[in-house]
């Protein structure tokens, strides 16, 4: 039996030093809705738990030049209740708010959802569509990377030893922009996405001038589907354009057959969700 140490530092530097000094046995604790479940099931047995919920920068939402920075440990509930964020990024917020239930929302963070690195994590396709940037700090200082570059495989990120996620930057929004996230689960809640799809787009005079599409649960990591975005840009989002984007989503899928869905089903649903999410985002963009 190994004892577990617990630390709750007040600064990022301390947190980084603790994790870096733990020889790989250190784990960040945000909401704990993944970490504690994995510890209880015996999947993980960390020697040191570093709780980051006492660190100011990780637990607030700040606004910078029209964009937002969501601290890595901010809970879903706080995000949903923010005065301006849900209006600016309805798709990102609905994705984060889909995680678990009311109880889970009081704890679960976007940073945790990202770092847990599940291919089916709900917030990630929406963050990819949004063009969000991950802010990372480690023993060698700060760096930034797009969300779609963050994952290395199921359960694995591109963080280097000692690095932690500080926050997620959402860029300023052009007029006529909106986003949406949809997931397919066989039940109505308390389930894991069989497919998740985020769409962010900008409409000017009825024409789509920018679009990004993120897909989850269809490959070892969440995907940015550039071809799908391209298929939408320059169109009025007519059926033909949506059909082309859906085909691009299907083509991007590299799913597996598992207890949550079949290859055929996941591939089909990626296209279905793209069309539905794009329509919702467009309706929102039109206001």
């Amino acid at each position: 039996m190994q004892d577990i140490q617990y630390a709750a530092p007040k600064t990022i530097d301390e947190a980084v030093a603790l994790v870096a000094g733990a020889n790989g046995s250190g784990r960040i604790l945000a909401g704990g809705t993944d970490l504690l479940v994995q510890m209880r099931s015996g999947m993980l047995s960390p020697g040191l738990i570093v709780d980051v919920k006492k660190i100011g920068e990780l637990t607030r939402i700040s606004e910078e030049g029209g964009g937002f920075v969501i601290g890595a440990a901010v809970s879903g509930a706080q995000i949903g209740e923010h005065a301006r964020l849900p209006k600016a990024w309805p798709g990102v917020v609905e994705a984060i708010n889909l995680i678990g239930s009311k109880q889970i929302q009081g704890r679960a963070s976007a940073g945790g959802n990202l770092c847990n690195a599940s291919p089916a994590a709900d917030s990630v396709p929406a963050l990819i569509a949004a063009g969000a940037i991950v802010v990372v700090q480690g023993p060698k200082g700060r760096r930034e990377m797009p969300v779609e570059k963050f994952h290395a495989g199921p359960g694995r990120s591109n963080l280097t030893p000692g690095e932690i996620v500080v926050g997620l930057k959402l860029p300023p929004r052009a007029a006529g922009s909106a986003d949406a996230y949809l997931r397919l689960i066989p039940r109505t809640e308390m389930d894991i996405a069989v497919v998740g799809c985020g769409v962010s787009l900008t409409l000017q005079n009825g024409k789509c001038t920018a679009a990004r599409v993120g897909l989850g649960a269809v490959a070892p990591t969440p995907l940015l589907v550039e071809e799908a975005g391209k298929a939408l840009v320059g169109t009025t989002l007519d059926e033909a354009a949506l059909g082309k984007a859906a085909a691009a989503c299907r083509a991007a899928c590299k799913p597996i057959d598992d207890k949550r869905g079949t290859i055929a089903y996941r591939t089909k649903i990626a296209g279905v969700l793209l069309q539905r999410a794009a329509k919702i985002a467009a309706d929102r963009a039109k206001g």
Partner: protein
Amino acid sequence: MGEHRYKWIGTRPNRPDGADKVTGRARFGADFNMPGQLVGKVLRSPHAHAIIKSIDVSKAAALPGVKAIVTSKDFPEQPNQIVSAGEMLVNLRDITRNVMAREKALYDGHAVAAVAATTEAIAKEALGLIKVDYQVLPHVIDVEAAMKDDAPILHDHIRTEGVEPKPTKPSNIAKRIAFAKGDIEAGFKKAELVVERTFHTAPVHQGYIEPHAVLASAAEDGQVQVWCTTQGQFTVRGFCSRLLNLETSHIRVTPSEIGGGFGGKTVVYLEPVAIRLSQKTGKPVKMVMSREEVFRASGPTSGGMVKVRLGATRDGRLVAADCTAALQAGAFPGSPVGQGCMCSFACYDVDHIRVIGYDVVSNRPKVAAYRAPGAPILAWGVESAMDILAQELGIDPIDLRLKNAAKKGTKTHYGPTFNTIGFEECLQAAKNSDHWKSPLKPGFARGIAAGFWFNIGGDSSAAAHVGEDGTVTIISGNPDIGGSRASLAMMAAEELGIDYTKVRPIVADTSSIGFNFLTGGSRVTFATGLAVVEAARDVVRELKKRAAKIWEVEPDAVVWENGEAKPASTNVGQQEPLSLAKLAAMAGKTGGPINGHGQLNAQGAGPGFGVHIVDLKVDRDTGIVVVDRFTAVQDVGTAVHPSYVEGQLQGGAVQGIGWAVNEEYIYSAKGKLENPGFLDYRMPVASDLPRIETILVEVANPMHPYGVRGVGEVPIVPPMAAIGNAVARATGVRMLDLPMSPPRLSAAMDAARPKMAAE
């Protein structure tokens, strides 16, 4: 309601166990603790099928804090002998092997050893130190694969029973059974239309919220006490007595409050192991299963294959009904194929019926009872086929059933002739319901299906103890799963003529009340209810005797009315009535304590019938089924406490909806269960469901003083077919296999699309 006028029966008072349950005071299986107790943990097979060549426990035994380890060597061999357990039959030879694997591990999760240690962490560590040398064998999961000639054989001693000549080779088909009425081929000759399809269902777990849990304490003098969550403390006592060679009177089993059972807590898993560990250590041993263990090692109900052939005339009269069913038993024989076959066509009055069933073993956990065991599997086939028939004949599905409904005097294909039953009444009530008469919302479709279950009676004992203040304790021995304490107390209050609040019902341990067969088969309110009525009547007899003594008259000169002894006539004299409270206060002077007893083998359980109606829509692109409205109609005999009767109907319907649309066991190629948790074993969540509406039809059971019929099982029989029938009407696609999960339904719709476009 009929001519009966009751004071309590048919009302909705609070349940006696309600306050404790909502405040958290109620004690469930894992809430019992004793000073000095050890923690017991089970080592489980990671293989679906493997010979256990040896088990080396030396390293684990040497770990500080480990107090005892048991393997199959610690349990005596048992005879190849069948005993009843709830509605299921179990073989002692098999059950000791299910509790602890002997020669072979037969499924992923099969117990192979157990440890008692001072802490949970040490016990878990010790499990990792036990070395089991397995020789992995080819395995078989599915029922039809297990029936094939070249399938891996689970048990070398099994020769298919019920076939002539007696087979010489071992088989996974443990038994063939057959029922017949009339002449099936002659029946089909009269048919103007024949419908034939083959259906499948997936095995499903009972999904009780509370995992199996036990605390056992074996004392130096051989006395054993057990606290556990179970549907039958007497069943636990019986099994443990046989499996451990203990006298029944030396085992005292106290049932906890129960967090659901649905049939799954009618057998033993942990109890004999905890007792053995306690005997070896001299300390109390507590064992609690994890959810994963519940899924991997405790009984689901069978999955099965059902081939149905119906023959009818153009005007909708069934002339022949034929079906063949094969049900998974799990690792040991004993699926509910018999009950399922008996239920198959029980709803219908058909002259020519043939039903054949196969009981098949495969490398999955041994099945346990689950609400109306077997019946839902057969009903999925039969009620779907009835709907196809209705569609092909262009007849309203309720009218088709009314035309063929079983009624009083109908002779069933399995033997008995029905006494008073309420199937036609249920169909009429469904037809007259607001639901059936309401127009469908655009995009929605409606399905109906019917269901049948026998309900059982059996052995029950009860006592009624009168306190010195005139309140009464009702003592019986059935764990209260669906509100039975309230119903028993209401019947006692009715008999005694006193207030419901003056009657306190309790569930006693095995040493404090006579034998009660377990809570199952929808028997408690009927059978134990009869014992309670008898105990209350025994008290009334005694009360009349005491009044007679006080008045110095013969006991039959006294009548009992509204809770008081009164002179039978003016001839007896002008006596002031004596209330129960007054007689109780004077008991010491009139002959001592006043108690009553009832003990019986209840016969005449009234069979139950139900009809379910569902409105749903199907998302064409995703295959997701959205249930919008659901009504469960059922003949409930007499609803003693209507709220709890409605609760049974609602719960059964919800479990049936889960069975229909999502629940299934997913196995890897190696035979490992991939979804042993509620995240991926998808039972419905509250937001998936509409409020389940209920219509209680009351056709009194003539064999019970208050007309009680069991109500707990019928409601899980119709929902799957009701949903399948609605799905067929919504999409034009007839689903033959359960679950109708989004990927399957979506694939079926896609496959049908070109065909439908061409038509």
